């Protein structure tokens, strides 16, 4: 089976069937990571380049592990240490890499649309590992995988996405993914951090966290970027934690067997309290291991097209 597309740029461009395909293809790879010899020859002889213009240890490591466990040759390219500082453009950098016969380029960039621009201009398969505030499709997919594992279904599941939605590519990908798969999505955050017209994406908007909680099955907490304080988006971490932080009381307020998720890294005591972070209700570490499996499944599917 294959995805019949060269690139994976966004969740918004995927159909529900394609999402199902990726999730199913990822299942067997989860088992591979549990073996003693964590290797399958699926991508043997292929070259995967991680082109990360934004610093990221976790996502990059996850892609690197995934590619290596598939037996690919992996190169990590972090342009802070290379020619981009000397003024080379994204396209020129990418074309240089393509000339090294990269089969898959995994791109993370601070500009929305960067992955799409790259994909149009190179023959290699491009996987969007996060472009600006736009999308982080593999995060969306691994979040779906985790929810499916823990809750069994998406249909009519009540999912709340909480935090700085405006600046979150994870939020956008998750919203597309969950709405497409039939979940009921609520976004919660201070009005300064909820982008305009987001209801048109099929979600309900709340600025009062407590009002949004009853009945919620899954909560995805977003990381508060502390650098955003001082730009009039929120007055202080203290107030943010009080109004929008997930604590034990709020977990109980849902009245369900709440699943707590977070794309990481977490700010303990800010968006998530210490007690909740360490409780067995969080699937944060499962998300990490599922991330490797989903990225393996995805790269397998893309390579089938080539």
């Amino acid at each position, binding site marked *: 089976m294959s995805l019949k597309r060269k690139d994976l740029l966004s969740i*918004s461009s995927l159909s529900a069937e394609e999402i199902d395909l990726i999730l199913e293809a990822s299942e067997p790879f989860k088992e591979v990571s549990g073996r003693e010899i964590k290797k399958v020859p699926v991508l043997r002889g292929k070259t995967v380049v991680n082109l990360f213009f934004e610093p990221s240890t976790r996502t990059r490591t996850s892609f690197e592990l995934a590619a290596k466990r598939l037996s690919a040759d992996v190169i990590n390219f972090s342009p802070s240490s290379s020619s981009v500082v000397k003024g080379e*453009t*994204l*396209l020129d950098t990418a074309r240089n890499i393509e000339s090294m016969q990269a089969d898959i380029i995994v791109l993370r*960039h601070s*500009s*929305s*649309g*960067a992955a*799409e*621009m790259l994909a149009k201009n190179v023959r290699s398969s491009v996987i969007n590992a996060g*472009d*600006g*505030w*736009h*999308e982080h499709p593999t995060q969306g997919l691994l979040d779906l995988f985790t929810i499916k594992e823990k809750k069994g279904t998406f249909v009519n599941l009540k999912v709340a996405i909480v935090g700085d939605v405006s600046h979150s*590519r994870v939020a*956008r990908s998750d919203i597309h993914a969950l709405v497409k798969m039939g979940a009921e999505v609520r976004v919660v955050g201070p009005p300064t951090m909820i*982008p*305009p*017209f*987001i209801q*048109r*994406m099929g979600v309900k908007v709340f600025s009062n966290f407590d009002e949004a909680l009853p009945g919620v099955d899954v909560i995805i907490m977003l990381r508060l970027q502390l650098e955003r304080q001082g730009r009039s988006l929120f007055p202080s971490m203290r107030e943010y934690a009080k109004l929008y932080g997930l604590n034990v009381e709020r977990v109980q307020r849902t009245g369900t067997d709440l699943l707590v998720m977070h794309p990481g890294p977490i700010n303990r005591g800010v968006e998530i309290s210490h007690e909740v972070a360490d409780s067995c209700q969080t699937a944060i570490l499962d998300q990490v291991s599922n991330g490797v499996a989903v990225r393996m499944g995805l790269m397998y599917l893309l390579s089938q097209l080539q």
Partner: protein
Amino acid sequence: MRTLIKGGQVIDPGRLNRIADVLIEDGKIQLIDTNLQATLKNPESVTIIDAEGLIVCPGFIDLHVHFREPGFEYKETIATGVDSAVAGGFTTVCCMPNTSPVNDSQSITEFILRQAKIADKAHVFPIGAITKGSKGEELAEIGELHQAGCVAISDDGIPVMNSLVMRRAMEYARAFDLPVVDHCEDSHLSAGGAMNEGFVSTELGIPGIPNAAEEVMVARNIFLAELTQSRLHLPHVSTIGSVRLLREAKERGVSVTAEACPHHFTLTDEAVRNFDTNAKMNPPLRTDADVQAVKEALKDGSIDIIATDHAPHAVYEKQRQFDNAPFGIIGLETALSLTLSLVEESVLTLEQAIAKLTCEPGRVFNLPFGTLTVGAEADVALIDPKISWTLDPNRLRSKSRNTPFAGWNLKGKVVKTLVGGQVVYEAD
């Protein structure tokens, strides 16, 4: 030297709209009447231009172009700019001062006029800066700019954020009867924005520029114009709120004029869906409600004129990530076709549409062009309103290619342009 433009539909808005012949002598309109050919003395020495089936109207006036010279000649020069202009039917253009160095002095103004004279194709009138270096702090030597030949002042590209500086600029400019053109944008509200703030920007995760960023400054400028009794001209009006403010101000008798650009009455922010940087400009493409409001405003006269805001950028500059690419699109060679669409849609009559490109801009900046009255400069555009053509960016006369209309099927085209009675452009 005599030329006879024969048998076209002569439209001189407000004065003439019928089939007639136009006789040009020594670069000026000599006579307009029917059957002139028969009455010619020494007919062998007269150049005949057959205009049957064509519209014959005054050459267009664009009050808002960026010709990038001095300093950014790789994007456009005055020579390539006027080439592009006449290919679009424009025989008079006013070029903005955001060159490098900024046109805040007599020497730069004179340089621009000199380059235009050498290019010898269209009339070029410089717009001088409001503040020194367009930094928004100290007034430029506006008197000297006026004497050197500037027809208006603007810091276009950047707003004059300090309201006191804007007030003083308006008052000072009154001494020279110069229109003040403020790029209406509250730079705090728009900070970081790359497209219209709306549902599309929310889905794409691109920082947005809200309508309010333009509207708060439109409001401010209208009040300052009232306070100072000066001539305010609002460039590139793009929002429903700006239109509302304009309408109300005009009803009150405030001396304010306004322009709209063809892209703001043709495209919405949906054009940016695939991150096309050739659809990125400032103010950005807005929503359908805004587009309809701009059309209404053109119809009822709240917006006086059409101008292009022709803003060339090199291909490689636009080939960057969306948020990184420069703002601006070219527009001289597509303006007429897009304006004729308004006639198709019954937003404007043909005569009104031509007026918005000719006598109205002439009136707004007091330029002695834009009409076909006897004795006027023979700046004439011949239009084939029926011809269908596909826009191939590589065949544009501009040095740059940054247009969102590449590949569009357009209707109506300028087939010939005359400046001072000389043919300066002929469609191939």
